[in-house]
Structures are given as structure tokens and as C-alpha cells.
């Protein structure tokens, strides 16, 4: 593999420098670099960010290869600037054994677009009854560190406690999908003014907040590591702020769509806006932005949830919840957080790379762009405006809520250990 010389990139939004990528690492950083035979990538006006890390991706393989595969999902990830994604466990079969997580991990290696860190299920079959063999998954070739029943909540308090205790033995974290099941039976959208008018069964904020409160206290009690998936309410932000003040080992993520969209969109009854947890109110959006800005919410995670056309082209109630997000995540964060002055590019790098990598522990990701570090990075044009076209995306599914919208900032190039996976905004 030849060396790559990135010319004039603004390092995490700072002054322009050259980056020499060679032998998988950042070989040199400085002005006026040159290297005979190196491929030159002009990065004039582009921002260099460490390769983005997604803690929450649904790649759908094995089981729903009609909606997404590891190949198509990781290609989408690379186009979005990601160099590592954590693949959620709710596949078919469920990723609840060393065999399945190793299969997913190998598919990622074969695809080569970005690293795939499989998430292991907390309980067998996501049924919430019996702990899966978490240690075997941790010891497997896939080196699982994040465990989650995402899509379902580990609602049994005792099981949740034991899981958080148990994974301490191998530096694991339990990523909780916080949804009290009895409070959300048949739930279709945020419970509030809009649900009352639309006649759709409400998904109340308290169903998320009650579980988060419980789990934070449990984490404090057992000294375990808790990560809260897709925080969606203002109340949740307050609870996490409180738990962090206590010094408990609690982290949290927010999705790009919860930073931008509100439940007003449900009035269209277009299931592209159906997602779990549901879109909330502007008050929640404002609190989530504030929480992400002040560090209460540690990171952004996409919850990229591709669905086949027939699972979305239906009545709202019959549709599957979820939105694609890998190829729009950075742009949505730019729109919601950078353009509003709430985050700098350096802070975006923290919340979309350094911090998620610190939580998920994928090898060699989320490192600073310094000499000797793995050359995982992306180049972003912060002044670009582009129009979202679902058909032009690499993901196999079309359920983007931004279809036809114009978004700021575009990923121009992505490098995985020095090898370009994306160049000129296209798969390399």
C-alpha cells in the first residue's frame, strides 16, 4: 500500500497542516511535507477528524440481508466518515454466542470498509430471562466489550444488576435500551399533545426515565459500567447529569435524529418518522443539544436502523420503527450543533470519535491524529451543502427521514489504517 499525503487539512478545525499516512499510521504531521511516490490528497478547506466511531449500528446480518448486510452497512458507514461501528445484537439468529459475534466480525473484516465491533446480547435470544455467555463473547476473536439487548430493554432489575456486575471481569459495559415495557405496550409515538390528537398510543418519557434512574442507581451500587442508548428526553438528561455528579460510571448517547426532529412530523402518519425511542418535543431537542454540548451526554450514536420497503410503506402502526443514519449523521450534527454554535469541530471529534471509542474500546480507534497513531480519519467539507437522496445511498434501505432535505457538511474522504475507503465523496 502506497503512502498518502493529505495536504492542507484543518486538523479538527484548526490551522491547515499536512498529514503523511504510511504503513497504517500517521507517519508525519507538519507543514510542507513531501514524500516521493505518495498519493496526494488535496484537503484545501477540509476539516480532518479522527475516524468516526458509532456505538449503535444495526447491520441486519445475519437474518435480514434484504434490508442491510455487513457489506452495504459498512460501505454506508465509510461514506459517513466512520472507521468503526458497533453492530447491534438483534439479528436473526441473535448475536448471543461467540459463534455469531465472530461471524459478524469476520464479515466486517472481509468487507474492509470499516472495523466492525459486534455487540453481544445481554440475554439469550434477547428474551430478558437468562444471561447470555458474555465471557465467551468477550474472549472470542470478536473481543466483545459492549453488551446490549437493544430493541428490547433489560427490564428485570435483578438481571440488569447481575449483568453490570458480571461484565466488570472483562471490562465490559451494558448498553441499555431504556424502555419500561409495561408503560409502552402498543406505543407508537411520544405521549403528549400530538399523540392525543393523532390517536396514536403514547410512549411516555417516564418509561425511559424510570429505567435510566433505576439503572444509574444500580450502576452506582455495584460499581458497574452503564451506557444509556439513544437518550431522548429532557428528563433523561437531568437524571444522567445527576448520576454523573454522584461519580457513577454512567455514559450516554444521543442520535442525530433526536437532535433535529420532533414529534410534529408524526402528523404526516408517514412511517419514515416512526422510530424507537420516538421523536420527542422541541423542549426535549433543546435539552439534548444542551446535554451534548456540556458533556452530560457523552457522544452521538446513529442507531442506524435500515428497514425493507415493505416494512415502512404501510400504516404507521404496522410499520417497523427505525431510520437510517450512517450517511447523514455528521451532517445532521453539523446542522444541529455546529451551525448553532453549540459544538466546535474539535468537540465533534470528541463526541463522535474519541469518546465513543473510549466507551466501546475498539482497538486503534478514537485516537488523536498524532504521529504514530493509527491512520483512521475522515476529511469533511464544512461548507458543502448537499441534498439527501435515499436512492443514491450505499445503505440497502431507503428509510431516511431527510429525503430531499439540504444538509450542511459533506464527508469527502475516509481512511482506515491509512487506506482510503472513501475518496471524492465516493467509495474508494
Amino acid at each position, binding site marked *: 500500500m502506497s503512502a498518502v499525503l493529505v495536504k492542507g487539512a484543518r486538523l479538527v478545525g484548526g490551522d491547515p497542516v499536512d498529514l503523511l499516512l504510511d504503513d497504517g499510521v500517521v507517519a508525519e504531521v507538519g507543514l510542507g511535507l513531501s514524500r516521493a511516490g505518495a498519493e496526494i490528497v488535496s484537503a484545501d478547506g477540509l476539516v480532518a477528524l479522527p475516524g468516526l466511531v458509532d456505538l449503535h449500528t444495526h447491520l441486519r446480518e445475519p437474518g435480514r440481508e434484504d434490508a442491510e448486510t455487513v457489506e452495504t452497512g459498512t460501505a454506508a458507514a465509510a461514506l459517513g466518515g466512520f472507521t468503526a461501528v458497533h453492530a447491534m445484537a438483534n439479528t436473526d439468529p441473535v448475536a448471543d454466542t461467540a459463534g455469531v459475534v465472530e461471524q459478524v466480525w469476520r464479515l466486517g473484516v472481509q468487507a474492509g470498509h470499516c472495523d466492525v465491533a459486534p455487540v453481544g446480547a445481554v440475554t439469550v435470544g434477547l428474551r430478558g430471562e437468562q444471561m447470555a455467555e458474555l465471557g465467551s463473547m468477550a474472549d472470542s476473536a470478536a473481543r466483545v466489550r459492549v453488551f446490549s439487548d437493544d430493541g428490547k430493554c433489560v427490564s428485570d432489575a435483578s438481571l440488569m444488576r447481575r449483568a453490570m456486575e458480571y461484565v466488570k471481569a472483562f471490562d465490559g459495559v451494558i448498553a441499555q435500551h431504556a424502555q419500561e415495557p409495561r408503560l409502552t405496550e402498543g406505543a407508537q409515538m411520544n405521549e403528549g399533545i400530538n399523540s392525543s390528537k*393523532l*390517536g*396514536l398510543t403514547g410512549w411516555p418519557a417516564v418509561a425511559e426515565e424510570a429505567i435510566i434512574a433505576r439503572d444509574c442507581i444500580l450502576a452506582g451500587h455495584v460499581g458497574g459500567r452503564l451506557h444509556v442508548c439513544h437518550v431522548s428526553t429532557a428528563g433523561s438528561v437531568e437524571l444522567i447529569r445527576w448520576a454523573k455528579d454522584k461519580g457513577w460510571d454512567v455514559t450516554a448517547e444521543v442520535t442525530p435524529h433526536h437532535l433535529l426532529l420532533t414529534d410534529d412530523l408524526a402528523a404526516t402518519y408517514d412511517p419514515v418518522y416512526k422510530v424507537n425511542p420516538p421523536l420527542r418535543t422541541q423542549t426535549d431537542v433543546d435539552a439534548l443539544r444542551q446535554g451534548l454540548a456540556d458533556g452530560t451526554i457523552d457522544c452521538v450514536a446513529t442507531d442506524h436502523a435500515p428497514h425493507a420497503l415493505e416494512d415502512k410503506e404501510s400504516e*404507521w402502526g404496522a410499520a417497523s420503527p427505525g431510520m437510517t443514519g450512517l450517511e447523514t449523521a455528521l451532517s445532521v450534527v453539523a446542522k444541529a450543533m455546529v451551525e448553532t454554535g453549540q459544538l466546535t469541530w474539535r468537540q465533534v471529534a470528541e463526541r463522535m470519535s474519541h469518546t465513543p471509542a473510549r466507551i466501546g474500546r475498539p482497538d486503534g480507534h478514537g485516537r488523536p491524529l498524532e504521529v504514530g497513531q493509527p491512520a483512521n480519519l475522515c476529511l469533511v467539507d464544512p461548507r458543502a451543502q448537499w441534498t439527501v437522496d435515499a436512492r443514491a445511498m450505499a445503505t440497502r434501505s431507503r428509510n431516511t427521514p431527510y429525503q430531499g432535505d439540504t444538509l450542511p457538511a459533506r464527508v469527502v474522504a475516509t481512511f482506515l489504517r491509512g487506506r482510503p475507503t472513501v475518496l471524492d465523496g465516493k467509495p474508494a
Partner: protein
Amino acid sequence: MKRHLLSAADLSRDDALLVLDTAEELAQLTERATVKKLPTLRGRTVVNLFFEDSTRTRTSFELAAKRLSADVINFSAKGSSVSKGETLKDTALTLEAMGSDAVVIRHSWSGAPVNLARWVKGSVINAGDGTHEHPTQALLDAYTMRQRHGRVEGLRVTIVGDVLHSRVARSNVLLLSTLGADVTLVAPPTLLPVGVESWPCETSYDLDAVLPKSDVVMMLRVQRERMGAAYFPSSREYSRRYGLDVRRVTTLKDDAIVMHPGPMVRGMEIAPEVADGVRSTIQEQVANGVSVRMAVLYLLLGGAESAIGSPE
């Protein structure tokens, strides 16, 4: 161009009054005639697309369309390809290919008529969707109130029962507030939706306090399965606190009327003596339903451009 009737909110005050006036004219025309059929919609096709059983509403729409000389196709989900996994979209495209001019849809999911309206070129009329709306029911209720009281504006209308799951309540609140009535919803707190404070009406938990001030009392059906979901402890307790029994009726004003969209649970939300009493408009509501639905079909399909309803 106005094409659909998906929500009572689609109707402006003028639209709603036009429907009521048209319904009145059509009722008079058919009453006087020996042959009750009018030639207005000859050659037009109306499809009754019912994904949920409702003999009452389907028959009412069928009769309304037939009295206007439209061709009527009854497409019920049971025994059709819908039960074999055909999607709403496929059904819509099939009806479209058959050249239907209007689809009257009843569906168990809220919003299904809105989805359908994206896939068909003809008019879509919401005949009840999930726990969302049932606009023609609200129109026939307003028509009935006007018939009995001579007006809707300024009437104090009390709607009692399972508001949370009621499409009748949602459409009535919207239409009646458009027409200037004062609506009060009465229910146990568990059967009022979170967010109801944003609706254009009052709410109360105390039926006895509200009844003496009411011109209209509309009782909603309470399904017994709500009891299992712990919305209230027992049907007996529900009846005691929110049922319209013989004693409560004596507290009503002399000219107050009692309405029910049907089907009733006699002895639960309404005593049989009340349902069959002189204040009851339950039979009139059924008869008025046909006139109002004739008016809606006529106004949506009769001219080159529809005279009421939502543009998209």
C-alpha cells in the same frame, strides 16, 4: 383542489355548515319522493373499504351512495386478499386500477386514510381510523343536535366515557368547536389522553356536576376489555360514577338530549330506559347518518371540484 375528508379539522365553519345544509335538503328531497334515488352520482364508483367490521357505518355509506345512484363496491378485508397479506398500498393500487372515484375507508390503525390518500387519485373519506377520527359521525351528530335544538352554536355539549380510545370524541371536539359549541369531556382521568389540555374543550371528572348545565349529553361506548387493562376497577364502579342512569337523567334540563354513536353497552354506560327514552336521539342519529353521508359524497364528487374537505 379539495379532495378528501380525513379529519373533522379539514372542515372550515362554512364547509361544515354547507354539509349540514346540503344534508337537510337531500333529506327533504328523498323524504318527499316516492322513489328515493337521485341521479346525481350516476356513473361514479364508490368503494367501501372496510378493514374493520362495522355493519352500521358500512350500510349507511352504502345506502347514501346508492341513493345518489353511484355504483357501490363493498370491499371488506375479511375473505379478500387483504387477509392474505396484501398491503394497504396494494389494495389502494388495485382500487385505483378499477377506476374508483371515492374510497370510504374504515381501518383499525390511526392514520390509514391519510396513507391511502397518498396512493389513490380519487377522494378518500375516513369512516373511522383506529383511535383517531370519525368525521362523518361528528357531522351526523351535529346535524342531529341542530335538528333537536335548532342550532349548534352556543350549545353545551357533554361527551362522556372512553375519550382516550374514541375517534368519535376526537372528531366531535374538532367539529363542534368549529361550529361554536362548548364541549366538556367527562371521564375517569385514566380515559382522558395526556395532552387533552391542548384540545378546544373543557374536561371534568364529575358527571353529576356537569349534567345540569348540559344541552346535549353524548355517551361513548366503554369496552369491557378496558377493565382488564386497569383503566378502572370494575364495570359496576364505572357505571356508578359515569353511567347515564335513570336518576342522573332527572337532573338534566327539560330539553336536553341524550346521544350515543352506537353500538351501546346497555347497563354499562347507559341504562336501557334512557337509551329508549324520549330524550334519546339514537334512532335519529342512524337516519341522519345516511343524509349526512349523501351530502359528503355529493359535495366531494358532485361537481368538477369538490366543495369541501382537505386539499391533499
